[in-house]
């Protein structure tokens, strides 16, 4: 009698600790056998629930990401329209110049402006392509801080301009050419998420601003995103980083979610946290400049 009980006890402990558990042998038709049978059913149901939860989290993540891309697409459409206008004007001007026999050098300069505008459009499309792909398994590489900032501004700046949000990036005691070892797109997506959260919080306010302050403390880079909001209630702060927790309306999730963003910071041996000492609303991403080993 003790042996079957010990099997059940060990299996229960393994299940509670998240270890892999196989079906218990049902060796008798008495109560112990029934207990083993029930345990096996419970194990299967728990596995199904876990699979459902993972799928559901994946769907929410994907839905949030699509919502974020939708929002950013509006800003990017506006950003693309300006170089398109420049190309249109330049081409029309060249047509006039050709009629008036203007020197070739002037026409050459006009062509340079067309090429520059096309390159700008290409950059915008490239940013969108980068942000929309799955970068979870990217290598950790040496990344220039300014490239991360560029990823962020390409995806957010225009949207803020159109919505009268004052947006500023400040390098505080750190060079913009500082190199850090990271998965560039993952870190960029985390900061874009922080910035989008800030925007969502203040978009209906009168005086709207968002600041990104980059600094260094010891061997870590700090990227602090502060907005003009007035902080977050204590009971909400505790839940902020829970999976699938949101304070936003249905359909309004606009990014990775703080839960996944925190996972990315932990993967970089760093941290992501709310700063309660700030009078406004501030989230900080901290990551080491150098990883112990490239992954």
């Amino acid at each position, binding site marked *: 009698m003790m042996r079957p009980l010990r099997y059940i006890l060990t299996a229960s402990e393994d299940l509670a600790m998240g270890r892999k558990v196989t079906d218990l042998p049902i060796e008798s038709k008495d109560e112990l056998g029934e207990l083993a049978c029930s345990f096996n059913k419970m194990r299967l149901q728990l596995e199904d629930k876990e699979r459902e939860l993972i799928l559901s989290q994946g769907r929410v993540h994907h839905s949030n990401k699509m919502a974020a891309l939708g929002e950013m697409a509006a800003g990017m459409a506006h950003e693309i329209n300006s*170089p398109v206008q420049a190309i*249109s*004007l330049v081409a029309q001007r060249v047509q006039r110049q050709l009629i008036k026999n203007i020197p070739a050098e002037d026409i050459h300069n006009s062509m340079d402006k067309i090429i520059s505008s096309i390159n700008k459009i290409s950059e915008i499309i490239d940013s969108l392509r980068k942000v929309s792909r799955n970068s979870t398994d990217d290598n950790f590489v040496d990344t220039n801080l300014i490239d991360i900032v560029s990823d962020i501004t390409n995806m957010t700046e225009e949207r803020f301009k159109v919505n009268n949000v004052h947006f500023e990036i400040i390098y505080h005691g750190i060079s913009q050419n500082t190199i850090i070892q990271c998965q560039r797109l993952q870190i960029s997506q985390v900061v874009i998420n922080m910035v989008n959260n800030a925007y969502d919080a203040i978009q209906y306010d009168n005086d709207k601003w968002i600041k990104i302050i980059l600094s260094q403390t010891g061997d870590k880079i700090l990227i602090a995103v502060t907005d003009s909001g007035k902080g977050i209630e204590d009971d909400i702060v505790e839940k902020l980083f829970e999976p699938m927790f949101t304070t936003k309306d249905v359909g309004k999730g606009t990014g990775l979610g703080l839960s996944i963003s925190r996972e990315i910071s932990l993967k970089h041996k760093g941290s992501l946290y709310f700063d309660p000492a700030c009078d406004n609303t501030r989230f900080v991403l901290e990551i080491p400049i150098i990883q112990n080993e490239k992954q």
Partner: protein
Amino acid sequence: MDTLQKKLLLAEDEEILNEMLIDVFEDEGYAVDATSNGVEAWERLNTKDYDILISDLFMPEMNGIDLITKCQAVFPSMKTILLCGGGKDVIATHGKQEVKYLEQEIRIDMFLKKPCDLDELLSTVETLLSN
């Protein structure tokens, strides 16, 4: 029309577009000053006389609607053209004078949607300045 006497102020934050508009209007003989945001444009309007203001809508510091509204209040004889690529907060029709922006109805001299035709832009400026 003697365009050398006509002074034009541009407010456009996209550098390439600004450069092109300067070239285009100087080709036609206008005296052109260019600024890259609404605040800078407003400061320039208060230091020098201009005949016409051509402003983009979405700019840092002060948008084109606010700039034109201030301009109309203080310089009622100055002509104004608003250029805009669109955007969900703007309700306006190309080539018209009524713009609705964030529930506010604004009257300007002309609204042109980007990308606009160069001939149309130049003829609009000429028409406004000859009225």
